[in-house]
């Protein structure tokens, strides 16, 4: 490893989001550009300063709504002169695209990289209610291929069916309870109530949670994130350029990309320790900071249980100990020792697919959380996205 990890040459100098809603009916490229222009403006830059573009997953064959725009769509729409651009889904989760931007900046390929993630799954689902976004198929004449051939014939059509089995295994091995799992969803809803951009803001009790319909044991409806329309963007800048921009830079302290287990949803070695633990171990090896330094945690909750896995992976609680850690919800509350998913996560804030967590980390570190701002003046945030076989994490801070 170099003396100074490349990502430490970077700062997030701008953040931006489009409108966020269940079904906005807005052209996904327009949503994307709204977020991108907001981030450029927030950074105090002009479009002519942007010399790189990075996104996840880019233009790929994917379920409708999963990708709002490719890198080249944005480059062309904004007439960006790009010295570097990149996209793709074969990376360290959604944050992989931001991490790659850090590497490009650290390597001197670009000075200010525009990163974005854009989804329109809410509109893509049409009026069929809160349906799942399937990963392919259905109907006569359709055959399952690739990975889905191993799951779809058995009705395991969604990631919920795969990750529920991780949760069941965790409950079996460590005694984790459904009430403990519920705390992730309840905490998210409490925080979303204070976030004007969140999807679900009405109060939710433990009874409400258990009364929601079962999707696949142990996941109730409110253990599953809420598909929505929305885009999020960041500007990753060369660190020494950040000071002149006038805003509060959020420095990239360390990143984690490791994926040492099989890249599979069902062949991974240990269902109770997904590959996020590899990324987290690597991340902590690239910084002098430790889990005790984390002031706020913004951890992926595509399904509630994934947040518990990330708490363990990042060493914020003992391995296997996430159940007792979140018991009662006090430790993870906004006024607790480890405020968690302070914007409502994807469960209540909307499935912005990974980027929402980094956005909220920047908001909190900049002290711009408004009603939901944690009082303890956080300086270090742990951010994680993905779960199962694609994961990445970042440690960001305002420490000089």
């Amino acid at each position: 490893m170099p003396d100074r990890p490349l990502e430490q040459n970077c700062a997030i100098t701008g953040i931006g989001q489009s409108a966020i809603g269940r079904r906005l009916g807005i052209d996904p490229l327009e949503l994307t550009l709204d977020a991108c222009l907001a981030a450029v403006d927030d950074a105090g830059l002009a479009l002519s300063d942007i010399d790189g573009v990075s996104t996840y997953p880019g233009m790929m064959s994917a379920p409708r709504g999963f990708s709002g725009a490719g890198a080249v769509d944005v480059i062309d729409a904004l007439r960006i002169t790009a010295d570097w651009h990149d996209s793709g889904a074969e990376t360290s989760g959604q944050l992989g695209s931001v991490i790659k931007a850090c590497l490009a900046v650290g390597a001197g390929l670009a000075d200010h990289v525009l990163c974005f993630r854009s989804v329109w799954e809410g509109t893509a689902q049409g009026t069929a209610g809160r349906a799942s976004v399937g990963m392919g198929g259905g109907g006569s004449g359709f055959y399952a291929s690739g990975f889905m051939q191993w799951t779809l014939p058995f009705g395991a059509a969604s990631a919920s069916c795969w990750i529920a089995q991780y949760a069941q295994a965790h409950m079996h091995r460590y005694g984790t309870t459904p009430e403990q799992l519920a705390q992730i969803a309840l905490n998210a809803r409490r925080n979303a109530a204070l976030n004007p951009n969140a999807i679900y803001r009405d109060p939710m009790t433990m009874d409400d949670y258990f009364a929601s319909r079962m999707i696949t044991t142990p996941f109730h409806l409110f253990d599953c994130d809420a598909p929505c329309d929305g885009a999020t963007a960041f500007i990753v800048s060369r660190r020494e350029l950040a000071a002149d921009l006038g805003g509060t830079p959020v420095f990239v302290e360390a990143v984690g990309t490791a994926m040492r287990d099989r890249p599979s949803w069902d062949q991974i070695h240990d269902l109770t320790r997904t590959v996020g633990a590899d990324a987290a171990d690597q991340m902590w090896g690239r910084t002098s900071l430790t889990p005790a330094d984390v002031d706020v945690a913004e951890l992926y909750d595509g399904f509630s249980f994934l947040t518990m896995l990330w708490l363990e992976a990042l060493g914020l609680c003992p391995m296997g100990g996430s159940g007792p850690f979140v018991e009662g919800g006090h430790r993870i509350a906004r006024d607790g020792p480890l405020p968690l998913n302070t914007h409502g996560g994807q469960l209540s804030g909307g499935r912005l697919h990974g980027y929402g967590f980094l956005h909220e980390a920047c908001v909190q570190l900049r002290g711009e959380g408004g009603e939901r701002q944690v009082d303890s003046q956080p300086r270090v945030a742990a951010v994680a996205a993905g779960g199962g076989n694609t994961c990445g994490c970042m440690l960001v801070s305002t420490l000089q």
Partner: protein
Amino acid sequence: MMADAPFRILPELTDSNRHFWQGGRDGRLVFLRCQQCGYYLHPPTPVCPVDRSKDIAPEAVSGRATVTSFTVNHHQWIPGFDPPYVIGLVSIIEQPEVRLTTNIVHCEPDEVVIGMDVRVVFEHHEDPHGDIWLPLFEPAAAPGDTRA
């Protein structure tokens, strides 16, 4: 399709997976196996990941497995394939790291537990592109069972 079989989305048959999806014709659960080191390859792949040998051939296993995890699915994902049903992840006894996502059948959902012994049972689906035999798993000690 068997008269009592539900609608299923079937796998697309290819030269690399035919042994698996059609092995049930003869009641056999078949995986590719490295003929040099004995490692079972799943999903199918042309080179053994252990010794990089290309000397690979389909071989039947016993069909016995244990339940590594499971979930009782209540959501209707696929029109015509009605919940509730048990999705299980089973590990074959010959090489437990080989796992199959499957359905646990011939028992009540609340009878399924992690660690239980199961055995393969095939569900035959006729299809113009080639018949499919889906490997499902049932409790190894089914009540009233008289089979060996």
